[in-house]
């Protein structure tokens, strides 16, 4: 698709009050196009907009009539509802609280989403697929983005329809007024590693509050290794991919991508192996 078509196509041909500027602008593709390729915005587009607004108004009125805005009891800090739920569009993040501490689920991960979205146009060097729907010309970008979107929406759906008392999992047909037994038994990865390999709990070194055990070092190695391997494999095996991106784009993109993949990875570790934290320090736990 040629650029700037609409903009330049709309400039008045006579050089009205542009102070001579219009004469400076190059002829654009649309100037070469015959009038038969174009239609006037009034009435053609303006009417479509009008009709879509009317439909939207009708929909809003309909929804307002069948489902009025809720109003519960007066706010009171004495009685805590169970469960307490954020508005639906934040329930994905609240659902993440099951698997991550609040500083990650509520602050760092959302910030990474925002930063990732801002970076997106700058780290996607693929010139193809501009201005039309295509999957085959930009498979990686579309798959990566849709993966993130799916994650966001699945977590929201779980938070809205499957979380009941004490934030336990409830199927729609279950009794939502009975508490579920508290399932404990979560262990930190370093404990699992220490036990399996029969290591002692005595720290190798102590840095202030931080007693560093061998098992703890192994979790550090696994955590950093996840990123290290993730960064290296495409670099070593898909050099063309790396070269099209360049050093800065590649590293930004891989960091975002691996962090995004890390979220479901941690969720699986929790669900399959009861892992509470993969990395524990006195200041933060992941």
């Amino acid at each position, binding site marked *: *698709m040629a*650029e700037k*078509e*609409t*903009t*330049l*196509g*709309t400039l008045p041909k006579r050089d009205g009050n542009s102070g001579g500027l219009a004469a400076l602008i190059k002829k654009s593709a649309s100037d070469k*196009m015959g009038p038969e*390729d*174009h*239609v006037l*915005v*009034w*009435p*053609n*587009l303006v009417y479509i*907009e009008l009709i*879509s607004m009317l439909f*939207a108004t009708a*929909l*809003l*009125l309909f*929804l*307002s009539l069948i*489902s009025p*805005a809720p*109003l519960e009891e*007066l706010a*009171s*800090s004495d009685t805590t509802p169970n469960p*307490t*739920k*954020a*508005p639906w*569009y*934040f329930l994905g993040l609240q659902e993440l609280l099951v698997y991550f*501490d*609040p*500083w990650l689920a*509520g*602050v*760092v991960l959302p910030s990474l989403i*925002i930063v990732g*979205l*801002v970076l*997106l*146009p700058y780290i*996607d060097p*693929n*010139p193809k*697929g*501009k*201005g*039309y*729907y295509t999957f085959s010309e930009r498979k990686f970008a*579309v798959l990566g*983005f849709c993966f993130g979107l799916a994650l966001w929406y699945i977590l929201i759906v779980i938070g809205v329809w499957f979380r009941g008392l004490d934030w336990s999992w409830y199927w729609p047909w279950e009794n939502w007024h009975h508490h579920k037994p508290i399932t404990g038994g979560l262990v930190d990865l370093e404990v699992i590693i220490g036990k399996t390999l029969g290591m002692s709990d005595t720290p190798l070194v102590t840095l202030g509050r931080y007693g560093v055990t061998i098992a703890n070092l192994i979790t550090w190695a696994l955590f950093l290794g996840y990123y290290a391997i993730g960064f290296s494999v495409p670099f070593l095996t898909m050099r063309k991919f790396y070269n099209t991106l360049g050093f800065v784009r590649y590293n930004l993109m891989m960091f975002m991508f691996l962090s995004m993949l890390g979220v479901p990875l941690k969720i699986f570790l929790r669900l399959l192996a009861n892992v509470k934290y993969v990395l524990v320090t006195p*200041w*933060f736990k992941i």
Partner: protein
Amino acid sequence: MNKLLDQIRENVTQTQVWKSIFRHGFPSNDANRALVMFSNVILHLHPVRVRRGALKIKFTWCLGGLTFFFFVMLAVTGVFLMFYYVPDTRRAYNDIKDLGTVIYFGSLFRNLHRWSAHAMVFSVWMHMTRVFLTGSYKPPREFNWVVGVILLVVTLVMSWTGYLLPWDQLALWAVTVGSKMAEATPLVGNAGPFGPELGMGVDNDVRFVLLGGTVVGQSALLRFYVLHCLGLPLVMALFMAVHFWRIRKDGFSGPL
């Protein structure tokens, strides 16, 4: 009959009053249809002519336009709600209750406001998804995508600040959940990594700034109210202006 209508239209649109208001004649011929797009402040957000393909709804699904429409709807219904609502913890709840019981059209406006908010949050996500899938963030539109991300965030925060205003249990506890997260911010939250090490406590961290206190109380309600009704809408309007300006200047990516 048609003759008569034409005659009336002619008489109206030729008057001095009509001509002083509209800088164009009645848009019944192509010259005036172009002029109406040029000389009307709202319509001139559009180009005058578009390519035929632009009329394909399946490209934009009207999502950006609908997001803007929901915003306007929220502004209109919001002004109405502001006449009846006072952000005082002793009466906010009752003001909302009155909307549903004693004020003419009160519940209609409140419901419209609430549903428009849901709809806007939904459509802004869908719009972003559309823009991604059509690759419309690619050069020269990178920056407009960034402006869009700002609009997305402001939309979410506006929705969230509005959630507190009814001052019912739903409102209080939803915001309490959110402020728990603020408290956990690394470095600047009292429960976040390295927060305590940097001297953060419940009465000087980022949550304190957000709520204007240590609990979700009167100061928090006032802060959220001012942000919701004044601060954030202004930010939103500013960035929307940039967004629309850039769509025209960068040119529209699709068949439009």
